[in-house]
């Protein structure tokens, strides 16, 4: 090596930390710690000699690009470099062609132009872009609650409300614009489906509507603003349903299967979208719901919002003394009823509060609607699995301790194993565990259940379910299968919690829901949204994101090591055995 390359290496080393890991028998590649150019070349040579051509070419291409950049911009700060590397890492990890990410801007232009031409532009492209590239302001749960909890008669109530309204007036257009951009840049043709285009158009209309309101300065203006928001928020169902339809139509109409890389891209995009949408709705709903009924107001839908059912309008409100036990009980009742409607029987859902004495009285601030949604989703899955297993006749009494009496063919409620829901409040968080004995799923399929686009191929679809309400999602309307779990996880993670499923194949599934008690976590905006929404770079990995304000990456709570960044740095258990290596192993003997 010459002196110049030594200099190069020194520069590189002091700025970059990237070491290259090759996993035998796996196509997972990871960038990590330090590297020299000579070692790089060695490794590239070795890698090229192995079978995975695609990954090596993508990776070496990326590496070369980055090395060049390093030389050119040696003064860039380390954080940015880290981000770049992690973006490359995540890109290569997912084997996604980063070309897609780079070319998103182009896609945005074309498609938005199409919409504009079709429907008459409410918002110009430049306005949209400008709005979308402004940063969002993340809010923590306790902040949001502070805004609304003031006494209606206190002097501070109205000025605070006005400030909230002004903040929203500025913040909401940014978020709505970003959602619209998100939708319009969904990858792989999803953004071109009719349904998605329609929603994007809807968002653009909302945008225009919000901006039409003047910045609220008086009580009247604030009231009108709130009423206007209500209309936007009322429509809860159409968007997820439309996206689900869009996804389904993509899968149907394509002749070839979407390959795994594209699927991953789509998953990430949808994850980001729903994550940010949650925030958007939360802000708006909270503002609306927290206004105190005035004397001349006769709006029925705001009455007694604590007891409101999902069918009424605004639900995303934060409660100071949310009781997980009550929410769980309510959810259990509802699920048992609807299960009975659908199947005729329902497993018993036991709700147990196992909080130790010292924490029994502490406050738990949360959004009850989110909690109810998550619990309902999980309980529905459990009940469905339990019943399916029982109806299939595989239900073996010797598998379970304390065997139940099962007459041939006649199933009574008693013979269905119950679903147990345990709530425990600890020092730092509230954990809810839902354990069923519904037969479990294979570990390799478990990951698929978290995707937005997973088909029900692995799970038989019972047509009876689709007829009654049991088979549909919380969002109602149409067969929106497959969205419930990922959305539940988004809700759980939104304020810093986590939702994990552990499957015991042949026995049942345990779901663990972790919710932070203290309410200090910042809103869980995806990093991209948090930092630089307009840049459209894909730093965010939909499954294992790290966010500010809390030192835990949520991927970790489900058992991944903190240092693995969500991806193991060596070939781990191979679900798809690499036949070639097997052959080599045999031949070597």
């Amino acid at each position, binding site marked *: 090596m010459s002196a110049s390359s030594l200099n190069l290496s020194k520069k590189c*080393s002091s700025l970059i930390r990237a070491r290259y890991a090759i996993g035998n028998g796996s196509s997972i590649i990871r960038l990590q710690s330090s590297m020299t150019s000579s070692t790089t070349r060695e490794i590239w040579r070795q890698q090229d000699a192995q079978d995975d051509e695609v990954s090596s070419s993508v990776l070496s291409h990326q590496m070369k690009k980055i090395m060049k950049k390093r030389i050119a911009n040696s003064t860039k700060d380390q954080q940015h470099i880290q981000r770049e590397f992690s973006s490359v890492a995540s890109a290569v990890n997912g084997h996604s062609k980063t070309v897609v990410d780079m070319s998103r801007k182009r896609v945005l232009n074309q498609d938005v132009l199409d919409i504009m031409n079709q429907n008459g532009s409410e918002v110009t492209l430049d306005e949209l872009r400008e709005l979308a590239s402004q940063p969002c302001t993340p809010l923590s749960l306790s902040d949001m609650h502070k805004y609304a909890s003031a006494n209606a008669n206190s002097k501070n109530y109205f000025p605070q409300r006005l400030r909230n309204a002004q903040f929203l007036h500025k913040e909401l257009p940014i978020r709505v614009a970003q959602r619209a951009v998100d939708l319009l840049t969904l990858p792989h043709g999803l953004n071109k489906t009719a349904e998605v285009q329609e929603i994007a158009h809807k968002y653009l209309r909302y945008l225009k509507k919000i901006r039409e309101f003047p910045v609220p300065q008086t009580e009247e203006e604030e009231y009108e603003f709130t009423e206007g928001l209500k209309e936007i928020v009322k429509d809860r169902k159409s968007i997820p349903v439309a996206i689900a339809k869009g996804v389904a139509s993509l899968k149907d109409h394509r002749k070839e299967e979407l390959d795994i890389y594209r699927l991953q891209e789509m998953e990430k995009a949808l994850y980001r979208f729903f994550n940010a949408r949650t925030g958007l709705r939360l802000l708006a709903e909270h503002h609306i719901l927290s206004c105190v009924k005035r004397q001349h107001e006769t709006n029925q839908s705001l009455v007694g919002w604590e007891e409101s059912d999902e069918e009424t309008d605004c639900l995303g409100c934060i409660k100071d003394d949310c009781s997980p036990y009550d929410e769980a009980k309510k959810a259990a009742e509802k699920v048992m009823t609807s299960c009975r409607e659908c199947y005729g029987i329902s497993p018993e859902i036991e709700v147990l509060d196992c909080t130790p004495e010292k924490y029994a009285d502490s406050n738990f601030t949360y959004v009850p609607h989110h909690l109810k949604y998550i619990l309902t989703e999980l309980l529905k899955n459990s009940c469905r699995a339990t019943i399916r297993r029982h109806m299939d006749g595989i239900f073996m009494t010797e598998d379970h301790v304390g065997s139940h009496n099962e007459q041939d063919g006649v199933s009574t409620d008693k013979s269905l194993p119950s679903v147990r829901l*345990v709530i425990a409040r600890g020092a730092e968080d509230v954990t809810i565990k839902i354990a069923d004995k519904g037969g479990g799923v294979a570990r390799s399929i478990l990951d698929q259940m978290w995707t937005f686009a997973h088909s029900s191929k692995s799970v038989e679809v019972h047509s009876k379910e689709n007829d009654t309400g049991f088979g549909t999602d919380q969002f109602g309307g149409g067969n929106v299968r497959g969205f419930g779990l990922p959305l539940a996880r988004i809700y759980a993670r939104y304020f810093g919690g986590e939702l994990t499923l552990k499957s*015991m194949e042949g026995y049942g599934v345990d779901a663990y829901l972790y919710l932070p008690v203290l309410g200090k976590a910042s809103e869980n905006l995806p990093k991209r949204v948090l930092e630089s929404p307009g840049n459209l770079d894909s730093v965010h990995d939909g499954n294992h994101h790290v966010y500010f304000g809390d030192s835990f990456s949520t991927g970790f709570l489900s058992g991944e090591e903190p240092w693995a960044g969500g991806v193991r740095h060596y070939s781990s258990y191979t679900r798809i055995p690499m036949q070639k290596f097997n052959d080599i192993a045999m031949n070597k003997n």
Partner: protein
Amino acid sequence: MFIRSTQRCRRCLPIRFFNSSSTPLSLSEEVSILVNEYSLKPQTSVSLQTLFRTGRGELLENFDRNGGEAKSARYSSSPEVLMQVANFIHHELPIRLARRIKDLNDVPYLSDMSSVQAVKDIYISSFLSLVQEPTIDSPVREALFARKLELLYERHSSVLVQMAKGAFEFRQMLKNKEISSLEGEAFELMNDTHAFLDRFYMSRIGIRVLAGQYLALREPTMEGYIGLIDQHTSPYGILKKAAMDSSYMCENMFGSFPEVVISGKLDLTFPYIPTQLHYILLELLKNAMRATVEYHGNDPRMWPPIEVVIADGHNNEDIVIKISDEGGGIPRSNRKKIWSYLFTTVKPEIQKALMYGNDDELVDHSVHAPLAGLGYGLPISKSYARYFGGDLSIESLDGYGSDAFVHLRRLGDSLEPLPF
């Protein structure tokens, strides 16, 4: 042309230029070239199935020497099988050792600890002794090779404790802030250290399984065993044994022990290495018992039982063993740390005694671990579980208890994970 990486660079540049004699202590130039050469060769990953099919002689026809004539269906290991395995080890082990040596050389800060350097020396001497061995083409050679491997195996059994010492020293230095220029990188450094230890131990498991299997094949076979692998490992049987062992330890420490209730598919059997499974289950049961006792106080009547469920369906991928306790759970801030090699809830004095007290004996802590000690039990158990394609995870309800899930692949067809 070689570049000499200078001493001052070692602290600030976390890189090693391997072609140099950058580590004045242990490596001469020729050795480092040799190590480098071997470390670049590709590793071969074997699966459990391959191991026992090889042991049974089913794969002999792929073996150059014999051309199919000596294929034996007997379960006892014929000389041909032994030669086949010996040659594979002869080929594969140096590659793995070389990679470890390189890694040990390169890791920042840890490589400066004296214990770590001692480990590196052990590895280098093993590597050299294997590399100098010619190809094994006769039973005589094979017997000599086996003898060599036995010595190697024994020499390496103290490596676990040595590395633990190294990590301990490293942690002490961090605490005393003897390592400069760390402030900005503290978190990443921890990550790197963990990643290194993870790779190191996983690789060590691989080496020991290969060597151990070979040596076990040379012993007279037990019923149903092929080397270390028991084709009819019964999780229930191992659980009972592990429960007995941990009850014994718990009784020694606390005077009594909580009950262990096992349910599920008790008659399940599958091919596995029983000692590994025993280690994992013992570790989890120990933790469960300790948590239960410490959470519920001294009255044995208050201790809720530890429930274990063995799950298996007809054509499962996985066998899952779930160990639930009501020992108060793990708070969120600790959940990350339980998997770390540098964390234990045991007081530091006891830890020190565990590591330094056994200098004379070569106690292999990966086989005989105390009730609570180095803090290695969980991460190593996880590596064991993952080694044959399974997993180990712990979910906890803070304030109530924890559930540990051990997933094991039923078919044994997953390839070893091989760190780079």
